[in-house]
């Protein structure tokens, strides 16, 4: 409280200090953005589109991210198809009034989306039911799912409230890069082991791009940099002919369960120990993981990167 009366540069120093740790943490997370961009470029090559969504200030970011792709700031860059689902007040309020606010993005996404599309949601607070529902729906549809996350709720972070901000917060840099590919989000200053506090709360997300701060303003700033870099990298991968988008060893037409970055429906023919199963892909059999689903012989499961992510139909379906 005393800060409000304090003259001089102390509030500015504190504002700068609050941004240094998350900014450096972003550099450590660069690899996550790279792998996400690679997957997104592959989706655009398959005529997929980008669908973005978020609440509050993140609704504005959803619009910003989409326009980066549809109208590139760098002359000569190809326009890529992108839509923000947060822009249309008639659509958003209409769905909210009819089905509740949590449905506003999922409903649009189910109607407008296709399996080859990319869904990017901003999970920035503790009330992101609409974004969470849309990411879950996108996952069900077989889309590539991406979440930009923030850490713990703002209220618990010293400094996040400018009216009570005091000394600079402790560095958030203690956490190193997380294990790539694990959808664990922001296991950072308060929960290095991950937990429901990871920003995704148990959602299955292909790419989690975390802002490692609980200050919602600083998180937004990190998100802006993330999506700018993401846009650049998508173009690097999209345009460069030397960058192979499919593993050289597999010349399959995209049906290969291991290589294809697409969710493929297959039938379980044998359940094995250790969460594994043998499935019929239509052109042969492969062993996949069914650790995330309750799959039985005869079930049709949706497989992404050798992992069953949903059961589409029961016995003999």
């Amino acid at each position: 409280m005393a800060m409000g009366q304090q003259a001089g540069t102390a509030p500015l120093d504190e504002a700068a200090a609050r941004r240094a740790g998350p900014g450096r943490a972003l550099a450590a997370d660069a690899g996550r953005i790279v792998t996400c961009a690679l997957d997104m470029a592959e989706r655009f090559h398959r005529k997929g589109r980008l669908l973005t969504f978020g609440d509050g200030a993140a609704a504005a970011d959803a619009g910003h991210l989409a326009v980066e792709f549809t109208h590139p700031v760098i002359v000569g860059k190809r326009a890529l198809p992108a839509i923000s689902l947060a822009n249309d007040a008639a659509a958003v309020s209409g769905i909210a009034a009819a089905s509740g606010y949590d449905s506003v993005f999922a409903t649009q996404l189910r109607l407008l989306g296709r399996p080859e599309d990319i869904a990017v949601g901003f999970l920035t607070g503790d009330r992101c039911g609409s974004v969470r529902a849309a990411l879950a729906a996108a996952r069900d549809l077989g889309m590539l799912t991406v979440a930009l996350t923030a850490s713990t709720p703002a209220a618990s972070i010293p400094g996040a409230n400018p009216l009570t901000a005091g000394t600079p917060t402790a560095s958030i840099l203690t956490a190193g890069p997380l294990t790539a590919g694990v959808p664990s989000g922001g296991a950072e200053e308060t929960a290095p082991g991950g937990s429901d506090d990871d920003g995704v709360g148990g959602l299955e997300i292909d790419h989690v791009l975390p802002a490692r701060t609980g200050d919602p303003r600083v998180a937004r700033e990190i998100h802006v940099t993330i999506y700018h870099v993401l846009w650049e990298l998508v173009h690097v991968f999209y345009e460069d002919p030397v960058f192979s988008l499919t593993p050289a060893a597999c010349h399959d037409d995209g049906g290969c369960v291991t290589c294809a970055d697409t969710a493929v429906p297959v039938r379980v023919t044998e359940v094995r120990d250790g969460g594994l199963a043998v499935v019929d892909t239509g052109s042969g059999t492969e062993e996949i993981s069914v650790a995330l689903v309750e799959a039985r012989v005869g079930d049709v499961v949706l497989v992404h990167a050798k992992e069953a992510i949903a059961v589409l139909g029961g016995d003999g379906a």
Partner: protein
Amino acid sequence: MTGTLYPFLGAGQVTVEDVTRSSVEKAGESLALRLRVLEGLGPALAACADVLAAAFRAGGRLYTFGNGGSSTDAQSVAQLFLTPGAGGRSLPAMSLTGDAALLTALGNDVDFDVIFARQLAALGRPGDVALGLSTSGGSANVLRGLEEARRRDLVTVGFAGSGGGRMAEEGLADHLFVIPSSSVHRVQEAQTTACHVLWELVQRSPAGA
């Protein structure tokens, strides 16, 4: 071509490691620019915050505007002042970029250059605040908006990039913040930080108590 962004590409040499290294550098540049902006523009942001806090206390409204990505940044600034969440004071603010009926009517029937000026002429009152964002400092409709705001005795706040463009040359903003970068993306990132810190300082300002 990718050459302008990634000079190492094009010879069949690109690797994930190269691209990752480049991204690490960009993240570093983004942070460095943000900190440089806070150091260089911080005192001016604090002075601007006191003026804004006093304007709000006197019943003023904040209007924000910009084009493209800056239009969404204008929306997020207005949203932050209006509904800041826990610990923040809600203040009257709106963006001039959200009303498709109005924007398409003015753009189609009159001229795109007037889309913000016309709204400010209709809504603005002396003592209100007009905040325009332009990465180039040269967006005609943003400049027209600031001109109209000044004519009507609003406080004018301008954010620009690189050299500040016409916004700087013509002195259209009472409080001008020029981000010293020629990259549109880095400018937008640093502008986001500057706007957030401006909001933080308004919230703390004794002038708003």
